[in-house]
Structure formats: structure tokens, C-alpha cells
């Protein structure tokens, strides 16, 4: 049996556990979609989708904590690294799904209301911000446990929000001409942060005791 099977077992466990939450989020998405998309406020829906993508893996971590799953998982033929890797792969998967849904929304809204449509690139921007958020959050969760990290989640979200607003205030004017470059830089930084975050989380998890 190969390594992908162990990882798919761990991911299946998370997906099964997240079923009820995914349903709730889907209903929320529909409600927000119905409200915001006709208003031409597609960006809000993108943000919402990316927040969901970041939120789901974090929720699975706290569910594991509650069930005392990790100590059991460590008796199974998986390594500590496999467990962390499954969480990161799942995060990539959720972001992938969110980006695809956002893309569909963008295409439809471009077709129906071309005057209010936002460029496709904005999806990359929002996705990158979400991924960056997740990259910071994972190590915090592994270091402090889901109980304490829950508050940090909101603090972190506020900090990123404030930084964004500040950034817009300072450099907002130069945005128009160089938008694509800024978006690409953000995306590259986020992906680098995500990869670095994986290695940090593996190290933190290797040291963890249950």
C-alpha cells in the first residue's frame, strides 16, 4: 500500500467530519450569493469563499482535538508528518474548489452584467490572501492547540484586514497601473508562506505530545 492511501484515509476522515459544517457554509454561501452578486458586489462573495476554505481545515483540527483523535492516529501506520501533510493537502483542495466556484461566478456575472464585473485576477488576489491567512494560522494551531488559537484566528483576521486597508491608503493610487504585478507578488508571497508554514507545522507537530 502506498503513502497516498494513508493520506487519503486521513483526508476522508476530515471530509466526513466536516459534512455538517460544509452544508451550513453552503447555505450561507447561497444566501450571501443571492444578496451580493446581483448588487455587483462579487468581491465580497470571493472573500467569503476563501474564508470558508481557510476555516474548514482549521475546524477539522479543533474537531480532532475534541475527539482526542491525534493520540489514536499516532498508533496507526501513519507518521506525524503524514498527519500534517494531510491537513495541508486538504487546505489546497478547499482553496482549489473555492477558486473554481469563484471563477464560475465571475464568468456568469461577466456574461450577465458586464458593466459591474471584476477582473478574474481579483480571484487570485483574494485566494492568495486567504492562503496567507491559513499559512499563519496552522502553526499557531499546532503550537497552542485549537482552544487558545481560536481567539488568535479572529485577531489575525483583523490584523490582516487592517494591514490591507493601510496598504490601500498608502499605495492605493499606484494600484491601477500596476495591479497585475501587485497581485502576482501577493500570490507568490502567499505560496512561499504556505510552503514555509508546512515545514514549521511539521516541526511543531513532531514535538507535540498527547
Amino acid at each position, binding site marked *: 500500500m502506498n503513502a497516498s492511501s494513508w493520506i487519503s484515509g486521513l483526508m476522508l476522515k476530515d471530509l466526513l467530519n466536516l459534512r455538517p459544517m460544509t452544508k451550513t457554509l453552503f447555505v450561507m454561501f447561497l444566501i450571501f450569493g443571492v444578496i451580493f452578486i446581483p448588487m455587483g458586489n462579487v468581491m465580497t462573495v470571493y472573500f467569503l469563499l476563501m474564508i470558508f476554505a481557510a476555516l474548514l481545515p482549521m475546524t477539522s483540527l479543533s474537531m480532532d482535538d*475534541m475527539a*482526542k483523535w491525534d*493520540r*489514536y492516529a499516532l*498508533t*496507526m501506520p501513519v507518521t506525524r508528518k503524514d498527519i500534517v501533510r494531510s491537513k495541508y493537502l486538504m487546505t489546497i483542495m478547499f482553496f482549489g474548489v473555492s477558486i473554481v466556484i469563484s471563477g464560475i461566478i465571475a464568468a456568469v456575472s461577466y456574461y450577465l452584467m458586464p458593466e459591474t464585473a471584476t477582473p478574474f485576477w481579483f480571484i487570485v488576489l483574494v485566494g492568495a490572501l486567504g492562503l496567507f491567512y491559513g499559512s499563519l494560522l496552522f502553526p499557531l494551531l499546532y503550537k497552542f492547540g485549537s482552544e487558545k488559537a481560536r481567539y488568535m484566528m479572529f485577531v489575525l483576521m483583523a490584523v490582516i484586514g487592517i494591514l490591507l486597508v493601510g496598504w490601500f491608503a498608502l499605495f492605493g493610487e499606484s494600484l491601477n497601473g500596476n495591479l497585475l504585478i501587485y497581485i502576482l507578488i501577493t500570490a507568490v508571497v502567499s505560496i512561499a508562506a504556505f510552503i514555509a508554514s508546512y515545514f514549521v507545522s511539521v516541526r511543531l507537530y513532531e514535538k507535540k505530545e498527547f
Partner: protein
Amino acid sequence: MADAICVHELCKKYPDFSLQNISFCLPKGSIMGFIGENGAGKTTTIKTILGIAKKTGGSVKLFGLGFEEHEKEIKNRIGVVFDECSFHDTLTACDVAKILGKIYSAWDDPLFVRYLKQFDLPEKKKIKEYSRGMKMKLGIAAALSHHPDLLILDEPTSGLDPVVREEILDIFLEFIQDEEHSILLSSHITSDLDKIADYLTFIHEGKIVLSTSKDELLEDLGILKCSLEEFDALDKKSFLTYRTNQFGCEVLIKDKLSFIARHPDMIVDPVSTESVMLMYARGTAV
């Protein structure tokens, strides 16, 4: 005979508790009862053996293999049950089978379904709605369904009624029919261990005080009942621990037969697993 578990000088330090030089071996084909009061270090020992908590010293070998080089191989051959259910409340027994089927190379779905039937566990019901006994039985079914060679069980029978407990003990006895199989079973329910254990290892305050076969223990140890004056006058070389009460003194002694030969007039009662545990936990070492 090869050992399923061999622990040598295992140490684990916490700020307020430590395991000190834990050593014992569980021979293949047998059941070892791991006995101690709450907080004696049973769970910590098991977690340290499994690498869930990191040891600060000593060595652990399972099936003669070290964890560092053979982690996945060892883990494929063991089944573990903790004192609390480790599966998420939102899952069903069916979900558990799907997940573990992907993780264990030798997962046996029909066998798992058979255990569910035998234990009266509904497949489609959420684990949230299971009783404590049902959760425990689900854990045991899951631990048995990938054909492990070794079961490591941390208080699998605590908090269960006598009927369920006996049912579970029967399953362990059935499992051990195969001579390649072994069980390490921690418990403070000494009557369970009296029924099934071949070996007994006593732990107290993070130290192993005794590790021996049950037959040897029952043959070798005795409880001497005497007055305080007699206690002071006697040669203490075969004394292990003692307790005083209003009538005098109870002493846990080893080498019972030779003691009786030397002191034919004294009363020496046979021991039970429970009395040995109590004498070590509450008595004073001589």
C-alpha cells in the same frame, strides 16, 4: 520465546511526575495485566511505549523491532484502545470502516462487520448516540479488524458493567488462542486481570514494583498477619511492604513457603491481585 514488547529502563520526565526506569517484557502468546492505581503512570507508560509521548531515556522494542526504523511496520501490527473513544462523534461505524480501510494494509471489512453484529453495534448510528460500553466495543472491534499481532489496551473495561466486561474479556481470550498474539492490558479492575492475565506488572508512583507471572506471584507472595511487637522482632529480609491497623500489622512477604517453614506458628494468608496492589499502593516499604 520472543517478546512482543520489551521495555528497558524507560524514563519520561514531566514537571510534576516522572516514569523511572520502567522495565518489563511481555512474552509472545500471553496476556499481561498492567496494574496500578489512578495516576500511577499506566497511561503515560503506554503512551511512551507508542511514541505518543516522547521518552527521555531507555529503549522500547515491539516484536524485537525499534520504532525509529520500523514505525509503520510495527504500527500495522498493533491495535490500540484507549480509555476513551477516539472517534469523532459525528462519524458512524460505517465511516470508521471506510477511513481505517484506507489506512491499514490488512483491514478486513467483513471481519469488522461481523464484530459489529456480535457486539450489537448499529452501523449507521452516529457515535455520539452510542453508550460508553458501545463506544468501547467499537474501539475494540476497530482494533481487531486489521489482524494485529499485539493489542495494547488502556483500561478498556473501566466504567463498564460486569456483563459487557465479561463479553470483552471473552474476546480477548479468543484473540489470544493464536500463539503469535499478545495483549498488554492496563487496568485497576483486578478481578478482570485475575480472570485472564498470565503476567502481572505492578506500577506505583512511576516505578515498576513487581513484574512476574501470575502463578508465581500467587505462589511466592503472602500476607503475614501479626502484632506490632512480633513485627519488630521478626527478621525482615523477606518483607516487602507493611500496613498497620488497630489489630496489629499486615505484611506483604515474598518467599512465602520458606517463611512459613521458619515460622510455622504465624498466620500467612494467600494474596490476591487486589491485595498486592493495595499493599504496594498504601503500604510502607520495609
